[in-house]
């Protein structure tokens, strides 16, 4: 996992509610192995026209936000399918932090597995960040201090689950962490199989 501490840069304003993972990455792009090239396909149905050329009206294709590291989003971002390719595609496009009022549960878990930071802020705060608009207005997301710094210097605090935060800061490996409990797992298995052999 890629550790996360702090990121600064333009913040893409994409405030629609209920952006699902099918929109973030079409399933057809996940039939081949590997994560390479998924960044090119992020938001493909919005980002490209039928002939394959870029859609200049889509915000991620516009100059200040092309390759921007922060995405501002509406409620329930990442709802729907469990495809982790949605996270790989966003990171492949350059996004390191998504700020939204709420996230799909499975997408949220997938973000933390990969070092993409999901930040929950109230919609009003997200609208304020978006209002700073284009140009070179830079937003900072600081996980150590749990602050989002707006272009005008406003510092907006956010909360991150302590276990998730520690894992992101250190880039922890989850399998190694689970394996530390190997003795407890084996004891649990033996007891569970004795008490409920059908289970």
């Amino acid at each position: 996992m890629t550790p996360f501490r702090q990121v600064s840069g333009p913040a893409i304003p994409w405030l629609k509610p209920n952006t699902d993972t099918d929109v973030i990455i079409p399933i057809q792009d996940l039939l081949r192995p590997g994560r390479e090239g998924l960044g090119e396909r992020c938001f493909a149905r919005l980002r490209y026209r039928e002939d394959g050329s870029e859609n200049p009206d889509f915000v991620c294709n516009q100059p200040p936000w092309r390759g921007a590291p922060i995405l501002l989003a509406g409620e329930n971002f990442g709802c729907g399918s469990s495809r982790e390719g949605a996270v790989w595609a966003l990171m492949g496009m350059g996004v390191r932090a998504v700020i939204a009022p709420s996230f799909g549960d499975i997408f949220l878990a997938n973000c933390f597995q990969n070092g993409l930071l999901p930040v929950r802020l109230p919609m009003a705060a997200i609208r304020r960040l978006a209002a700073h608009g284009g140009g070179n207005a830079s937003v900072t997301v600081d996980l150590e201090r749990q602050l989002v710094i707006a272009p005008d210097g406003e510092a907006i605090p956010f909360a991150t689950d302590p276990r998730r935060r520690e894992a992101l800061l250190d880039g922890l490996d989850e399998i190694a962490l689970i394996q530390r409990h190997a003795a407890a797992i084996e004891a649990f298995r033996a007891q569970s199989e004795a008490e409920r052999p059908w289970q």
Partner: protein
Amino acid sequence: MLHGLRAGFKLRHHRPMQTMFDRIWDRHVVAELGDGWDLLWLDRILLHDLSGGRALRDVAERGLRVPHPARVFATADHAVSSAPGRTEGSFPRGGALVRSLREECARQGITMFDLGTGGQGIVHVIAPEQAIVLPGVVLACGDSHTCTNGGVGALAFGIGASELAQALATQCLPQKRPGTFRIRFEGARGPGVTAKDMILHAIHRFGADAGTGMAMEYAGEAVRALSLEQRLTLCNLSIEIGAKIGMVAPDEVTFAYLHGRPYAPKGRDWDAALADWRTLPSDPEARFTRDEVVAMRDVEPQCTWGTSPEHGAAVSGHAPRPEDARDSAQAAAWKAALDYMGLEPGQRLAGTKVDWVFIGSCTNSRIEDLREAAAMLQGRKVAPHVTAWVVPGSEAVKARAEAEGLHATFRDAGFEWREPGCALCVAANGEAVPPGARCVSTSNRNFVGRQGTGARTHLASPATAAASALAGAIADPRA
């Protein structure tokens, strides 16, 4: 070891005032990790072609083996052709995924319900059908509709690729305990109302993110009256209300469904299991984080109009007008959805011309779904301009339907009778609804592009889908 003993203590003692969800969760805590996190034991892991082979390779590449292959089951569903007479080569890109899954399963000693064996099917159709999922088990799968399996009273949830590899490597997952959200459906179902209509109504009423961070429990008179298959349909759309988990308490309906199925406990184990399963339901005084009631007199047959499952309406109703939205963000979302769907604000849904009808998916492809649709079609014809597909959920469902003659009813009406898989629900198998075409679908997602680039999806029950195929337009199944 200490953690194991503590968890064992919980295994034996029934704590009063508990929800079913919390009772099953507590029984599976291997270790407490702090900050509300637990290391959960997984009784079952399910794999499918889209991510299963890759996840098993990830485990092998770390130099690990799957420690409990008998607890893992696999099938091919997402990327297999549904064309009559299909083979894995019918959709070559999918064939590569199926072969990879088959090879990795063989290497690890994992049972795979392979194409043509009689057991293949959509993973959430075959798990209850084979009794791989049982009341009280914890089950994980790399698919968001894993919540379907909660219909038997299991704690089942979807995970991504990283968590899937962790689960396969350790048979455990660190999880944060969610809150609990109960919806009680009170009263009796009206004419033409199915479980699909109940859950679409609830998603519309409470919103597509109402269940975020929650485990759903569906209860009440109308849920008790549902068959087991209808309970699976109800739980299937839990993820569409935002919840990873949806459950219905097991009861005599559940036990009768499971008894005698291939992986159900047998003999004395069955008796012991039954006694245990009767202790699972939520205690009458159990407190839920959120508790809501839906009056069944308010639930009519449903048909979504937009691009989120929360864009619901009665099939006898209308698409909304953006000026009636609660705020400008919702108005903008509604306007974009109406544009994509090719609907006018306030347009009456019934009578809207339909090009495609799809009966299938992990939501509505079981034998009762096919019977419900076939009953509507008996002796009638699909409108000539409609392409109508029925994709049974599994090879066993298909065989059963053919034994009952349902395939003949579908074919005589003008439906294509196809091979089991996810097919047009996810369009990952080379099959798609064409751009701009309007499809009444028994699946679970009406997202932009879900059934194919530019495809327009209306979610509905099998009865409503069948009625719409006959009319060539969205139609009320009661009409």
